C-alpha cells in the first residue's frame, strides 16, 4: 500500500498535493496495493482527492496541525504509516515535505529519495527512482532497498490526473507528541501568482536591468502572462529584488514550462537552477552571452526596447 501525505495550506490542497496523489496512484499500480491518502488537521473537502486516485482518505484531527512543527507532523504521518502498514510513503518536495522526509526515513527505518522525478520501477524488493542531482546539472537513478520507502515528489514533474471519483473521509487516531515549535507569524507575498517553485511561467531578469527602478517592464510582462518573477543572484544580493526571487544553484531551483531570462548572462551557477525548464527564452543584447547556448528561443537586442514590445504582443495574443 502507498500512503500519500496531501499537504494543505489554510485548509486548501495545493497543486503539489494533487501531483503527489496522482504520483501515489501511479506508484501503487507499480508496487501493488491501494493508494491511501492522509490529511492532517482541518481541510476542505478531502474526499475530492479520490478523483486523483485515492481509494481512501484518512484525516487526523488535532488543533496542533494549524502550525507546522516537523516533529508533530512526522509523528502523525509515521504512526499512520505503521498502523496502515504502508510500504511506500509519498510526500511533496515542498518546504514542508523537505522538513519531514528525513524524519520519516529515521522513524520508519526507510531509504529515501528527495525530489523524485519519475514513477518508481520495481526490481524485486528494490524500487528504482530518478531525481535531479548537482543542482539540476545531472540526473541520478537511486535504488531503495529497505522494506519501507519514503519518497518526496519534485513539483511540476507529474501533472495531476483525474482518474476516479470522490471518496469518503475516515478519521484516524494515532499517538501524537506535544508540539515544541511555535509559529509566531506567517508572511506570504500578496498577489495571485504561483510561488516560484510551483510556477509554470517565470519571467526572470538580471543585472542587465541596470537598477531596481526599471523593474516595471518585467512586472508588466509577468502580469500579461500570469507569470511569477525571478532574478539572478547579484540582483538579489544588491537588494534590487527580494531574496526569495533568487534562482540558481544557491537560490531556488525551478522547472517551469517557460522561463524568460532577460539581461542575464547565463553563468553556470545560474543555469544549474533553471536549465530543467521546458522552454527557455533569452533576451540579451550580447549575441555571445552564454545563455543562448542553453536557450530554445533567443532575441538579440536591447531589453528596454524588446520587453515592452513583447508585453504588447502578449496582450494582443491574449485579447484575440
Amino acid at each position, binding site marked *: 500500500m502507498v500512503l500519500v501525505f496531501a499537504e494543505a495550506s489554510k485548509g486548501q490542497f495545493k497543486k503539489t498535493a494533487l501531483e503527489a496523489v496522482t504520483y501515489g496512484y501511479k506508484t501503487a499500480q507499480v508496487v501493488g496495493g491501494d493508494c491511501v491518502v492522509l490529511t492532517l488537521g482541518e481541510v476542505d473537502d478531502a474526499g475530492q482527492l479520490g478523483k486523483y486516485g485515492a481509494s481512501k482518505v484518512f484525516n487526523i484531527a488535532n488543533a496542533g496541525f494549524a*502550525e507546522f512543527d*516537523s*516533529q508533530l507532523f*512526522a509523528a502523525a504521518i509515521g504512526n499512520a504509516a505503521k498502523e496502515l502498514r504502508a510500504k511506500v510513503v509519498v510526500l511533496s518536495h*515542498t*518546504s*514542508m515535505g*523537505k*522538513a519531514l522526509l*528525513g*524524519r520519516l*526515513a*529515521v522513524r520508519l*527505518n526507510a*531509504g*529515501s529519495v*528527495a525530489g523524485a522525478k519519475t514513477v518508481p520501477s520495481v526490481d524485486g524488493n528494490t524500487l528504482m527512482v530518478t531525481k535531479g*542531482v*548537482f543542482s539540476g546539472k*545531472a*540526473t*541520478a*537513478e*537511486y*535504488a531503495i*532497498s529497505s522494506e519501507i520507502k519514503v519518497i518526496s515528489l519534485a513539483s511540476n514533474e507529474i501533472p495531476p490526473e483525474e482518474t476516479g471519483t470522490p471518496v469518503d473521509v475516515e478519521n484516524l487516531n494515532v499517538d501524537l507528541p506535544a508540539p*515544541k*515549535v*511555535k*509559529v*509566531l*507569524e*506567517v508572511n506570504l507575498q500578496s498577489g495571485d501568482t504561483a*510561488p*516560484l*517553485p*510551483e510556477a509554470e511561467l517565470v519571467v526572470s531578469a538580471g543585472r542587465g536591468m541596470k537598477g531596481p527602478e526599471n523593474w516595471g517592464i518585467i512586472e508588466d510582462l509577468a502580469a500579461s*502572462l500570469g507569470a511569477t518573477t525571478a532574478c539572478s543572484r547579484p540582483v538579489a544580493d544588491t537588494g534590487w529584488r527580494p531574496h*526569495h526571487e533568487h534562482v540558481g*544553484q*544557491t537560490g531556488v*531551483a525551478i522547472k517551469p514550462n*517557460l522561463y524568460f531570462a532577460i539581461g542575464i548572462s547565463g553563468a553556470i*551557477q545560474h543555469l544549474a537552477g533553471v536549465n530543467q525548464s*521546458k*522552454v*527557455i*527564452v533569452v533576451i540579451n543584447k550580447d549575441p555571445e552571452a552564454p545563455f543562448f*547556448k542553453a*536557450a530554445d*528561443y*533567443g*532575441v538579440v*537586442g536591447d531589453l528596454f526596447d*524588446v520587453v515592452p*514590445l*513583447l508585453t504588447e*504582443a502578449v496582450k*494582443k*495574443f491574449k485579447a484575440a
Partner: protein
Amino acid sequence: MKLLVCVSKTPDTTAKISFTDDGSEFNAAGVTYIMNPYDEWYALVRAVELMEKGGGTVTVINVGDASNDQTIRKGLAIGATDAVRVNANPKSALYIAKQIAEHAKDGNYDIIFCGKESIDYNGSEVGAMVAEFLDLPFISFGNKFEIENNTATIEREIEGGFEKCQVATPFVVSSAKGMAAQRIPNMMGIMKAKKKPFVVVEPVEFPDYSTPVSYSLPAKKTGVKLVDPENMDELVRLLNEEAKVI
C-alpha cells in the same frame, strides 16, 4: 552555548559535471572541491557569530575520508573551535545522519546547525534525520536567526514567503541565504586553525538503504532559434504554436 555545525564537501559550483563512461560513478578527475556553500556561508558563520557574542564553542563535524580534512580546516579557519571527522566514505544521507547523531547524542549541544541542502545531492535530508535520531525539534531553511535566554526566533523560508517561529534549545536548524554573510578566512584564522583540536573517529555500522546507481546528463539543447527583436508577435506565435507553452 555549545554549537555543532555539520559541513559537507561538494564540487565547486563551476565544476563541469561528468560521469564514468558506464554512468555508474561521478567523474572526480579535475574537479576542485569546496565546503558546501549553505554550510559555510550561513550555518557556520552564524554559529561563529553567536559564539563571538555569547561565548561557548563551535564544533564542525564531517563524515568523510581524509581528503575532506582541508575543507574541515577551512571551517576552523573561519572560526570553529574544534573539529570531528567520522572516517567513512558515505553513500547515503541516512548513514551520514546516523554518524552525526552518534557523535551528538552525548555531546550536550544546544544547537545543531546544517545547511539548507548540499549542492551535489540536493537532498535537504540530513538535518531532519539528525533531529529525528535525537528526538529534537527541527526548523528548516532558517534565513534569520536570533536567540535570547535559550529561546530562538527563526524566520524560515516557505513557498511564497516566510514564517517566523520560536523554539527552545536544544534543536536542529538548517540554514539558508540571509542567516549570515560569507566570511573569507584571514591569515590569522588559517594559522590558528592548525593548532585547534581535530579528532578523527571511526563510524558506527549502519546500512545504506538508498544509493545512486547510475547517472545521466540532460539532453543538449538542439540550438537556439533566433527571433527578430522588432517582431515579438513572431515570438509569441512560436511560444503558442510551436512550443505550446502559452
